[in-house]
């Protein structure tokens, strides 16, 4: 099977195809994680994107029944240097190629993924046609022109209707008895697990849910999830978040973090090529300590824009100084741009879920005092 990538600037990469025989148009991004391709492909935040992996050997441990971050693959295409047809891991149930085929997703391998990553680094994320159907350049070109990219997938990758997920029944969990409303823009299972694993009940609400609908279930806290697309397209989410600030303790991750910034009157902007990987250092300005984080975002919060809205910058990216976290100066609200749940990636910041639970408990008990780590 032939594989083809056609980029907006006219460059063409020919490799071999794997997975489904299909053609898609999406935004070409690169991810530098060395492990966790299954979690990456099933992360709803990748909806509409074609992922170029910089690590060249993909598929080594196959595909398992337990590593999905959602019901299936959201990415529009997958690009690797090499793939393994003979995966080896006790949990593997199929090869990466079989899985992509089953999910209808095209893959291209045997292309210079490092050159592609460098191109994206220099020129920014780029529109791309991926095909394993043997289409010609002309065909790719006309698709490029005719198929628009969407920036509002957060509107449809979350739950379609309210869904209740019970917290873990293990003894001694801190979040036992707490009810957390989750505004779902395409939440990862790892994040849900971060809440339910601490005993919280998570009530997932679809995009467009209003503040009143959320308050109607009398939640103890609100969680704003990750999700794909441009946060400024997340208008109803921003409106709901803004209405609930001051009414509920709020924690946001990734898109959720950006939504909080926008709700607080701030701005977001598109990064040249985003952050996607599992190795960025982030410093916590309140503690002075750093952590290695899992990242997946195209947009970032404008540092200057949020100050007026009562938000305080709490975390910065050690490489480029971009905003990685905020908290409200008084209200029980905080958020991070990165993924404390890892999945894939390091678990170093898992404690943020505990911080949220503690915050919710403190508010519930009327003991919330505000500040860095109340």
């Amino acid at each position, binding site marked *: 099977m032939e594989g083809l990538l056609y980029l907006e600037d006219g460059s063409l990469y020919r490799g071999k195809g794997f997975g489904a025989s299909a053609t898609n148009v999406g935004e070409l991004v690169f991810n530098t994680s060395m492990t966790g391709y299954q979690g990456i492909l099933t992360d709803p935040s990748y909806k509409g994107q074609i992922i170029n992996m910089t690590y060249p050997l993909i598929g080594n441990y196959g595909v398992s029944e337990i590593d999905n971050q959602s019901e299936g693959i959201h990415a529009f295409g997958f690009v690797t240097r090499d793939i393994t047809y003979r995966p080896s891991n006790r949990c593997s149930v199929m090869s990466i190629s079989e899985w992509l085929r089953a999910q209808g997703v095209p893959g291209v391998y045997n292309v*210079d993924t490092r050159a592609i990553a460098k191109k994206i680094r220099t020129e920014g994320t780029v529109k791309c046609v991926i095909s394993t159907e043997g289409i010609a350049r002309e065909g790719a070109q006309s698709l490029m022109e005719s198929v628009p990219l969407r920036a509002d997938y957060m509107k449809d990758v979350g739950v379609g209707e309210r869904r209740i997920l019970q917290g873990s029944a293990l003894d001694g969990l801190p979040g036992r008895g707490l009810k957390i409303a989750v505004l779902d823009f395409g939440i990862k299972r790892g994040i849900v697990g971060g809440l339910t694993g601490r005993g919280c009940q998570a009530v997932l609400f679809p995009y467009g849910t209003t503040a009143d609908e959320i308050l109607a279930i009398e939640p103890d806290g609100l969680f704003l999830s990750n999700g794909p697309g441009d946060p400024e397209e997340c208008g109803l989410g921003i409106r709901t978040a803004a209405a609930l600030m001051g009414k509920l303790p709020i924690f946001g991750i990734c898109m959720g973090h950006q939504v909080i910034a926008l709700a607080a009157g701030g701005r977001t902007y598109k990064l040249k090529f985003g952050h996607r990987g599992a190795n960025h250092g982030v410093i916590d300005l309140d503690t002075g300590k750093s952590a290695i984080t899992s990242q997946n975002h195209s947009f970032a919060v404008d540092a200057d824009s949020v100050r007026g809205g009562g938000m305080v910058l709490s975390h910065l990216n050690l490489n480029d100084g971009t905003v990685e976290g905020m908290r409200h100066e008084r209200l029980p609200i905080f958020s991070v741009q990165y993924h404390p749940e890892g999945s894939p990636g390091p678990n170093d910041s898992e404690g943020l879920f505990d911080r949220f639970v503690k915050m919710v408990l403190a508010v519930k008990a009327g003991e919330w005092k505000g500040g860095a780590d109340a």
Partner: protein
Amino acid sequence: MPKRENLKKILMIGSGPIIIGQAAEFDYAGTQACKAIREEGIECVLVNSNPATIMTDEGIADKVYLEPLTKEALEAIIERERPQGVLAGFGGQTGLNLAMELDEKGVLKKYGARLLGVNRDSIRKAEDREEFRTLMREIGQPVPGSIIAHGIEECRAFVRTAGYPVIIRPAYTLGGTGGGIANNDAELDVLVTSGVENSAIGQILLEESVAGWKEIEYEVMRDAKDNCITVCGMENFDPVGVHTGDSIVVAPIQTLRDREYQMLRDAALKIIRSLNIEGGCNVQFALDPLTSKYIVIEVNPRVSRSSALASKAAGYPIAKLAAKIALGYSLDELKNYVTGETSACFEPTLDYCVVKFPKWPFDKFKTASRRLGTQMKATGEVMSISRTFESALLKAITSLEIKRDGLRVPYIMKMGDDELVRKIEERDDDRIFAIAEAIRRGIDAAGRGGGAHTDTAGLFAIDNLHGITKVDKWFLGKLYRIVKMEKTLAGTGGKLDAAIIYEAEEIGFTDNEILKLSGARREVLTDIRVYNDIFPVYKMVDTCGGEFEARTPYYYSCFDAEDESRISDEEKILLVGSGPIRIGQGIEFDYCCVRGVWAIKELGYEAVIINNNPETVSTDFDTSDKLYFEALHIDDVMNVIKNERPRGVILQFGGQTSLNLAEELDRRGINILGTSFESIDLAEDRQKTADFLAALGIKTPPGFSVTTKEAAFEAVAALGYPLVVRPSYVIGGRAMQVVYTDRELLEYLTEAVSLSDDHPVLIDKYIQGKELEVDAISDGEDILIPGIMEHVERTGVHSGDSISVYPPHTAPKHVTDTLIDYTNRITRALKTCGLVNIQYAWDGDEIYVIEVNPRASRTVPIISKVTGVPMVRLAVAAMLGHKLRDSEYGTGLYKTMKLTAVKVPVFSGAKLTDVDIALGPEMKSTGEVLGIDETFEKAAYKGFLASGVQIPGGGGLYVRLRDSEKNENSLGVVRAYINEGFEVISYGGTLAYLREQGAGAAEMDAAEARRGIAEGAIKAVLDIPAAPNRPETDSFEIRRYATERNLPVLTCIDTAEAFLLAVRMKKSDEQPVYRTLAEYVGAG
């Protein structure tokens, strides 16, 4: 927090001589650390006894003490220097153990110095098995069922409940010395005994074996703020059971799902936090592939061989950052030195695959068991980088210089199936080649099965092979892909096309292998290659998968689309490195390469280096202007040349590895800087050398080059015994032997070498006498001889294994004058340019040339250091047209310094059981130390001290002398030992001889002697064997037994005589005085 206040001076403890398990990686780490300290304006005082290192050279530390690494020496130096801090984590186990002792004795406290980076508590918790296990349980980390034991009874009791197999690990040792896996009572007895004896504290860990699980390592760093990162995760091809130093190691981890990866990463961070380490640390895990359960195997609370590998594999300079952290910096305050912009507080991501392959000394040590286990046997390693695992593996095999182009090894391919299974089960150094052969047969079996859907079938189906080897099926699948390509190439019937060549190259096939398999002619391959532009491209190691722009010029080749190598407009010089460390070609050549690179830069050229040894300074990211991490095979070197178009290539510094490329490069019209190929060939070909020297009126030992047995015996008739026999083109005296009888000669010709027209054997008269060595620099007109060294041991002992002395301690002036004259005439006539090393023998009358090496030698770093003459720099300058007479060092013999330096070889005797330690023409030492002082006696004493051998003041001396040594000279030495209070013990013919000569001796047979050694009655062994290297002899066994218990074993009467000086010095009241190298040299 920026660097700690009040640090003005820091003492660095080096790792001492190179031994198996503690090698060049500590020169690399230590050099980085010294530089990191000085960058901060802190004075760095270094103590290291190893003269072959870069770290002990000018410009790395502020002060260098080339002194023994003993606690007495360190205490004296600390008292003298008064450092505020001591860095011990860069000197391997040696450094850590010394620091522990100094701390325990209160020395550090007394002088107000504190340990930086590690503390006694963390060292103890990491190294003491019991404390470590307690700590692991406290933090919820799983450890295998085990006991700490000091004797066999406890171990037997443990096994009664836990069952076999069990692993024995001695506490506080290097490279797993004395450990192993026991499958039954007999093995348990042996391993427990040797384990207890090898442990510095007589303690072993006996644990349930998890052999067969996956072995995974993480390199972790932590700072004082408790920030932690993992620099690199690595996976061993070989499952648990093979020492990681003897394992093929792959980076990054390949077969773990993210959850498994993060589970172990979390554990590694938890562990470094619990140990409170500020710096780097290595954590090893075993992971059960069937359940994902894991256990913690061990932790090294310091930089290590693995951290050197991880640094090179990931492009992250662990030692440098560990040093900065020890000075008080936190990771977030430090930058990524590779990108120059981003933060050091991140985790490198690789966009390539790295394979480390060990280099074993079994080609030298024919009697050594090649089975791999928990005791490390490799002397060095190579690393290779590529975009696929297959290619990285095949490149690594090429880099090993074992004359293999791929996975096909004829002797293995000839084995029957049963033999092959046994070979695989035995788990020796050739195991991967045996597995590949099994896969070949598995594919054939599947083919015969006719239409079967499996790729492999029968006995050697991949599933079965996994069952036998426990090697992960992912790795086996990769070998399968390589073997499939072999078959594809073989099926071409010589009709190659561009597509198949590209595909083969992409997974790492060498030209030779493609040609051999396909049967195509080289011209055809070359034509297709050129016409279709099938050449490798170079990609950068940048720590970040291309996410950020990087500055480091660190490249590897691969077959891919984009070439990233930026070729500057500067004029370039290419320097070919020395590859993996092996016996006979050690760290000294890396020293020369690094100095060579510096010299090239100083002289205004861009310095480009090719090398593949991850342990060394030469492959550090900021040593050269451009680093190519490649095999040193002609094809790979030519590809770099094609890319860089250097003005010339320097081959003199990489030992025999680089010199061997001279002919091929010359034939391709490449400009070899310095001595030309023609001259190299003249010097390397013994017959040509002899003729050429004869024309100059200089004697060589008379000899013949023979290609048949008949010719050999004709040579015997002409020369008479004893004779030195060897193959032509040798390195480190490989397969060289002194023979005394027809029987020995015949044995040699049939067993040791393969006689043929292409492989002549050289038979020379054995000249018994003094051996002297001259290193010179020549510019084509003049020469400079910085110094001459005289060997303590007579001819017949390999120069690398001899104790050697600067300046000559017995040779009279007329002899050294003649050496200077000869050296002058030889270098002129040979037209050498650059470095040359000539070895001479003086039989008391005549002077003979034994060997002319038109390259750097083992003694270059020593002579450079003790005379202050920058030999490599001068050599590079000479190659680039500068004249010696214009340099400040002048020409002729350089002034003799007012010091004596004694180089003492160090053997890794305890590691390779079943290798004879007796000195001979075959080199056996792995490293060396230097003792420097005012007199020969004092310097020799320091040399022996530094070598780590015990120096007894009396007690039993077990003496065995071969017949030719039963003479007045030997008697004199034995009597001198008696006068020092030793009680001579002997047996058999030697006993009779000694008694007859009135040197009273007690009697002990071999069994009694062993007991005497074990119980402490015998303190030293003087044994000059008639027939060394025969494991079946009882004298072999006694030498081994004594060596493994760290007793001095003297196998040459000259060594015994020199050792006596050390004994006397030790017994005298005089304490050694320790000075810096600059003070010694300055005094001259």
